[in-house]
């Protein structure tokens, strides 16, 4: 597929890496020749230097033959103009624009029509939603939902007190006493697809598939205290914090938001009536202490600087905050951060990239595309949800008789309201949805790809 990516920033580079690995024809547009040069050296792409909203530049980038335009430039207005211009030059073109300004959020549906957007993405809002979901269930590092929220893949870290340390997966059921499936284990930066004899160790991060209604039970049986967050400290007053604070306030959680810039504080105070806005430096221990960090329920670090977020989160963990969420915007190397107690790590790039990749895959095969795609295990593995339709082979055959590709795991079968964690005798029928976990290189684009 021919894809144009306008704006070769952090987001653009992540998309380039992901989409060029999927074999799409990519053209990058950016005003800065240096970033283009480094992209050209790293990936098999064509680059065009210039303003992405200009017709000449778009023409040069081959907009007439392109299938999809992804506008990821710095300013929302440029992205919108870029999509509108490009669409007027090629009416067949699908367009995705990044729109981040909260002031546009109420009118985003109207704008889709006006600016000919096929989809708009807002990474900050996605981060805020993700953080809010994590705050609802303390104890999990990451949650990805499938089957319209009925099934989740959750991430847990096993510390020394965990009941699961030194337990083989076959013996797990006696401890957790509910139907779950460990679909991946991340040990020292390597992702492993475990079998029944696999023994869990301290420090492992495990990815568990479970129906949403068993999550509470799971946490209880594992002995993880779950107290819903009542008081949350947010560090940094950017857009993510705004979205998150608004959501938390509306669900009755007490929010303290620390921001360094006074003017921004005034603005936030005006648009977030229920929250307590504090003007000060979030990296100052004294300030955090005085705002009661040691007895708050959760600390969320969302400043613009990754380094600062890491430092504040470490301090929070030290103070015994039960739940810590850290936003990392730029840092790629999560292997390095793996040993630090940062709590849940959220990357806006990864979240947004997943959304777009899902759209691209759906465009490639209109029927049979994945309903949901999530990368798990620090991007080493991918979890996808598919609908079993009339084209699917091997309907009604028990799983143990199917020959699946190596490294492909069926982790859940949803039959209408009922979710089944599959065993060897499970079978799927037309109309069910399947959740598949596979390593990244496998290249599963539709359900039939999983069979040998």
């Amino acid at each position, binding site marked *: 597929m021919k894809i144009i990516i306008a704006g070769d920033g952090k987001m653009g580079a992540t998309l380039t890496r992901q989409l060029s690995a999927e074999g799409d024809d990519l053209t990058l547009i950016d005003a800065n020749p240096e970033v283009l040069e480094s992209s050209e050296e790293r990936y*098999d792409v064509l680059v065009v230097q210039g303003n992405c909203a200009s017709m000449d530049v778009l023409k040069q980038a081959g907009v007439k033959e392109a299938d999809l335009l992804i506008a990821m430039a710095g300013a929302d207005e440029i992205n919108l103009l870029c999509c509108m211009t490009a669409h007027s030059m090629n009416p067949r073109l699908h367009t995705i624009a990044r729109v981040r300004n909260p002031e546009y959020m109420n009118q985003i549906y109207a704008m889709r029509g006006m600016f000919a957007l096929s989809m708009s993405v807002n990474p900050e809002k996605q981060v805020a939603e993700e953080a809010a979901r994590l705050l609802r269930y303390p104890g999990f590092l990451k949650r990805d939902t499938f089957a319209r929220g009925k099934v989740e893949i959750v991430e847990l870290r096993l510390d020394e007190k965990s009941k699961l340390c030194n337990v083989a997966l076959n013996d797990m059921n006696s401890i957790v006493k509910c139907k779950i499936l460990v679909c991946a284990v991340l040990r020292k930066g390597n992702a492993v697809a475990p079998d029944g004899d696999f023994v869990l160790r301290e420090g492992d991060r495990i990815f568990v598939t479970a129906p949403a209604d068993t999550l509470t039970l799971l946490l209880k049986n594992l002995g993880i205290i779950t107290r819903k967050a009542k008081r949350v400290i947010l560090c940094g007053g950017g857009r993510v914090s705004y979205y998150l604070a608004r959501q938390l306030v509306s669900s009755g959680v007490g929010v303290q938001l620390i921001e360094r810039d006074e003017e921004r504080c005034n603005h936030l105070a005006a648009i977030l009536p229920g929250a307590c806005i504090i003007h000060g430096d979030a990296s100052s221990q004294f300030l955090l202490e005085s705002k009661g960090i040691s007895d708050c329920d959760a600390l969320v670090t969302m400043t613009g600087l990754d380094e600062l977020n890491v430092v504040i989160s470490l301090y929070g963990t030290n103070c015994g905050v039960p739940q810590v969420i850290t936003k990392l915007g730029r840092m790629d190397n999560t292997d390095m951060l793996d040993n630090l107690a940062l709590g849940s790590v959220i990357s806006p790039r990864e979240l947004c990239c997943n959304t777009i990749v899902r759209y691209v895959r759906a465009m490639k095969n209109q029927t049979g595309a994945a309903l949901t795609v999530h990368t798990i295990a620090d991007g080493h593995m991918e979890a996808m949800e598919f609908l079993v339709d009339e084209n699917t082979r091997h309907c009604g055959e028990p799983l143990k008789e199917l020959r699946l590709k190596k490294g492909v795991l069926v982790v859940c079968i949803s039959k209408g309201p009922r979710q089944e964690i599959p065993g060897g005798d499970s079978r799927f029928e037309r109309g069910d949805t399947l959740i598949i976990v596979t390593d990244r290189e496998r290249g599963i684009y539709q359900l039939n790809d999983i069979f040998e």
Partner: protein
Amino acid sequence: MNYKMMGRFCGRILLVEGVFMVPAMLISLFGREFASARAFLWSIGIILLLAWLLMWFGRGSKKKFYAKEGLACVGISWVVMSLLGCLPFCISGAIPNFVDAFFEIVSGFTTTGASILPAVEGLPRGILYWRSFSHWLGGMGVLVFLLAITSAGGGDNGFTMHLLRAESPGPNVGKLVPKMRKTAGILYLLYIVLTVLNTVFLLCGDMSLFESVCTAFGTAGTGGFGVRNDSIAGYSPYIQNVCTVFMLLFGVNFSCFYMLLIRQFKAVLKDEELRLYLGIVAGSVVLIVLNLKDFYGTLGETIRHAAFQVASIVTTTGFATTDFDLWPGFSKAILLCLMVVGASAGSTGGGFKCGRLLLVLKSLRRSVRKVVNPQKVEVVRMNGNPISEKVLQNTNAYLAAYVIITGVSFLLISIDGFSITTNISAVLACFNNIGPGFEMVGPACNFSSYSIFSKLVLIMDMLAGRLEIFPILILFSRTTWRHR
């Protein structure tokens, strides 16, 4: 340095070379030239064995590959490919001396067309075919071929860009379409179509199939190895004119053909390099015709010879229909200048390249203006697009390297004691991948009289000229081989 990856690369290139030697062997076999067929069989065996060894050595290599490795890889693979490509000449006894055979095949791969053979008509057909085919393979580049048929082990990496840059001539090499493999495929497709067209036109002029194919290979790669002792002179005027036209076509930037294909006629018409190239050709033909006056019988014949020689020299092919060494001094001077200018960037021709000349002239004009008006800020443009300072710097550095290498080579081969004209034209003819020069190395003579040392110097010149200097130059740099 990622030696394993480089080994794998060279292995693959040898594999391609070995496979391409098979047709030559078959031609020998069908022509009942069993000695040369056996020579090809041995060569193919040795090449494939070495290819397998190199690929075995390079198994499980890391994918990390950077500019330095890319450049060095191109340089080394060309040397290795030439060292093994000359085996059929040695083993069959067509050219018994190894250095001579090496010279001949380097001259073939670099599309120079300079020969050490006094007569070619007596050679076995398989050998003649391999000689001409080396032009075709070297013309567009064997690495580009590799990029077209495989993903070159890099998958979606961008490092293949370094390979294309190193092997495709020109100051500002870019891709035609986002995927490297498709770009290389398009280039080769255009190349094959044009070669086939050329063959068909030659066949229409009652040339035998074998000679048509070989001549088309020589023209397509802008090489210049003929299958007759008198090059193209013995053929009919029609064939000579066909050659003139196709030589000029192969000297055009291939992206122009691609633009025509995707119906961007305006961009082609306005292409400054194409205009300069055609302008130089037209101007030179007119001046030479005026200068030759009554040298040939009729005006038509004069124009035909002038056009052929100009096309042959400017595209750095090196065919000849007449002994231009006998022409008056002014005409020879024009040809000498054309030798340096060369064809367009992105074509199969050699030389300094019209595109580069244009950039040098434009930046020179800017410098002159800056002397008059020091505060003036000016951007050099080509086809309306601003050219970055980095490209200009590289172009100027290229000019410097070009002049220095020419000078040093000239000094080195002067040890043999030939005349200054002979030596300077020999260096220019080899460095710019043309073939014939003047006097002792003129179109009616050959390079066999030079000593072994001079031949080695000229071999280096040919390789450096074809690969645009830097891939060969960095092989002599210590930092290349040091660890980081």
